[in-house]
């Protein structure tokens, strides 16, 4: 029979080959790898400093925070939802963590920060999944409230009396690799594994594809849908830990544009806004595109006001390119 034949075919390949092929397929099908390559090629020609190992290390370090919360946002968007409170959850958990650090110690403070992020995310998730409130509005409310509490808690000032050793998480190195890069790539890898190899990942895709069908299969959809938001909150808080460590202070107004950067990267990476389709490898490429652009514009000393204009044009162009490609 034809179906059993094709099954054998995939089995005869080594696991590494399979994974390699899989990554290649996923990135390719997300469509945006070509714009990324074109962008890199163009910048290499324009700026001689661009195509160096050091600069690439730089880019990876610059995008590490974005990559972390974009992975979280991808979880939410894959369920067919949306979360615009990423930046606010990040700021709120970061200021509390930084505020507690001198009294409770570094490690417990980080744990508390992460727990706060997870709880805020879970609150969003339960409001959406259980109370069936619209995700955009719920997370908009969270965005306003969490951001406001970050300001109230700090009185509007940065929280900066944090230990020197904590900075390691933001600007340290392990061997030749910056710590934030290691953490963010770790998050990406774990995210990929969770989506592909766990029941949670399976149901996240399922809920985004057809929530009713998953529910009618006897699956506790509320739990899994809420967890996706919880993970988003957790990763927002983790991004907050790294930002705080890098800046040596927690700033209540930080990461205002985070949710929109994340949504842009996720969508450019080929994840469907209606849920159920897409992969984290695509999201990685999406994040890199923005990183490469900022980096290139900085190397060319383009004023920062112009940079956002360029990003806007890139978002539009990449999506247009992807749709045209999908149609042909």
């Amino acid at each position, binding site marked *: 029979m034809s*179906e059993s034949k094709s099954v054998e075919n995939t089995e005869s390949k080594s696991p590494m080959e399979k994974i390699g092929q899989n990554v290649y397929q996923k990135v390719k099908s997300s469509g945006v790898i070509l714009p990324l390559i074109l962008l890199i090629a163009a910048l290499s020609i324009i700026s001689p400093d661009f195509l160096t190992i050091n600069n690439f290390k730089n880019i990876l370090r610059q995008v590490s925070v974005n990559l972390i919360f974009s992975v979280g946002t991808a979880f939410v968007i894959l369920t067919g939802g949306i979360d615009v409170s990423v930046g606010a959850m990040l700021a709120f958990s970061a200021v509390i963590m930084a505020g507690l650090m001198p009294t409770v110690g570094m490690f417990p403070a980080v744990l508390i920060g992460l727990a706060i992020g997870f709880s805020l995310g879970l609150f969003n998730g339960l409001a959406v999944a259980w109370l069936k409130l619209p995700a955009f509005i719920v997370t908009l409310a969270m965005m306003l409230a969490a951001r406001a509490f970050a300001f109230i808690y700090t009185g509007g000032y940065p929280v900066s009396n944090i230990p020197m050793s904590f900075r390691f998480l933001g600007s340290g190195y392990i061997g030749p690799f910056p710590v934030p890069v290691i953490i963010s790539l770790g998050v990406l890898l774990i995210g990929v594994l969770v989506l592909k190899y766990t*029941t949670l990942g399976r149901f996240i895709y*399922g809920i*985004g*594809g*057809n929530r*009713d069908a998953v529910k*009618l*299969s006897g699956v506790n959809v509320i739990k899994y849908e809420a967890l996706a938001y919880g993970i988003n909150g957790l990763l927002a808080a983790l991004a907050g830990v790294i930002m705080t460590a890098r800046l040596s202070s927690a700033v209540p107004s930080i990461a205002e544009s985070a949710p929109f950067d994340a949504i842009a990267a996720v969508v450019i990476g080929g994840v469907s806004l209606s849920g*159920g389709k897409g992969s984290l490898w695509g999201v990685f490429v999406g994040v890199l595109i923005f990183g490469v652009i900022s980096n290139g514009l900085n190397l060319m000393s383009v004023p920062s006001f112009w940079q956002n204009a360029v990003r806007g044009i890139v978002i539009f162009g990449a999506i247009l390119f992807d749709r045209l490609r999908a149609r042909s």
Partner: protein
Amino acid sequence: MDTFLELRDIDKSFPGVHAVDHVNIEVGRAEVHMLLGENGAGKSTLMKILSGAQQADSGTIIYNGRKINVPTPKRALELGIGMVYQELSLVPTLTVAENIVLGSDIAKNRLGVLDWDSIDRRANEALETLGVNFDTSKKVEELGLGKQQLVEIAKIISHEADLIILDEPTSALTEAEQEKLFNTINRLKKQDVSFIYITHKMEEVFELGDRITVLRNGKSINTLPAAEADEDQLVKMMVGRRLENQYPKEEIEPKETILEVKDLTTKKLKGISFSLRRGEILGLGGLLGAGRSELLEAIFGLREVKSGSILLDGKPLNLRSPVDAVKNNIALLTKDRHNGLVETLQVDENITMADIEEISNSGWLRLTEEEKIAEKFIKELEIATPSLDQHVKFLSGGNQQKVVLAKWLASNADVFLLHEPTRGIDVGTKVEVYNLMNDLAAEGKGIILVSSELPELLSMSDRILVLREGKIVSEHDRDDVTQEEIVANAAGASITD
């Protein structure tokens, strides 16, 4: 007969599937041309090529004596070719009226502003030509599947096409609605409209058809006049072999009671009591809205129970959601298969959906185990798919239905609530489904069968309960009941009026 449409050497492949294999078909003016074939034979694909929804790899379409190109469904409509798709293409959040006029341009007045009066008028007219009548200001998503099908048909008819393609149009219609559709077809035929009609129902083939073409594995096997065809011969052409018995019911001695429903009352049910034994197939008869779906859904934890109880193996159940039902090994095959599938997931991922515990270990999936289970059911149910990794969206309708069935078979349920389990499935596969039901019964499972196909209900059930207005009105043994009795009991007072 003067040839009106000619499909010449049409060919189309998808990755791993030769869906349409150099097919030739001729359709005459005012002819109803029946297109038969098993699930995945290529019927829908061939017709989508004609309606512009898909493009052929090669081949020619001659229409009204000219060679035509159909790059889009819009172009097809302009040429006078309209198609009612198997998977409906209505916009769920728009109203019936909006859906019917969608894509036509009379709905605007000179200033380009929508003219609601004329939209409503036109929608109502469209429904009237079909002989049906319902509120056109309702949103399509609020309608049942049958009504949606009618809206879709009305929409195509209102475009005044010369050739209408109907892809399994009656799969969700009631007898009465079906009759109205047939009348409409016969009336339009007199106005020289031609039809290509895809169906799995033999009665329709003989009642409506002028000629019949049978497809198998993408190839056209034969075209013959309906008057010269008989059912056995057609089935043989479709399946490629003879079918001994269309309803291979096995007599199985029922054992102890597995499910007991006592005095169950919900919004629509009024004190339902019955019991189901292991090894028994219990049929539920009744008209649309009699409460059959409500009863299945109540047993599956989807309806609020006002009073009464449901007992499994003698223990009362408290079913608040499908999670509880599946935990107690109750399975519901929904009437609408779109509620049973995640189309963006793969075949194997859908098959194990209700059985995730079996293939996971504290949250981690065991993918080789999953593949094994999926392969087993793909083989057992002969699901036509190029691989386990195929997204369910790309399977033909009947094969999608088999995937839903496989999901519940894989879940090791004890009680199977089967709501129209053979909808959209071809004759050969139906027999396989019946054999599966026999096997399940032999294993000591309890089965409740809801089917609007009376021959199926009567042949496969050991016992039949007839529901009317939320109550059980009669109970019949399979040996001494006729279709007429079931119908009379289901209709109740209205038949003696």
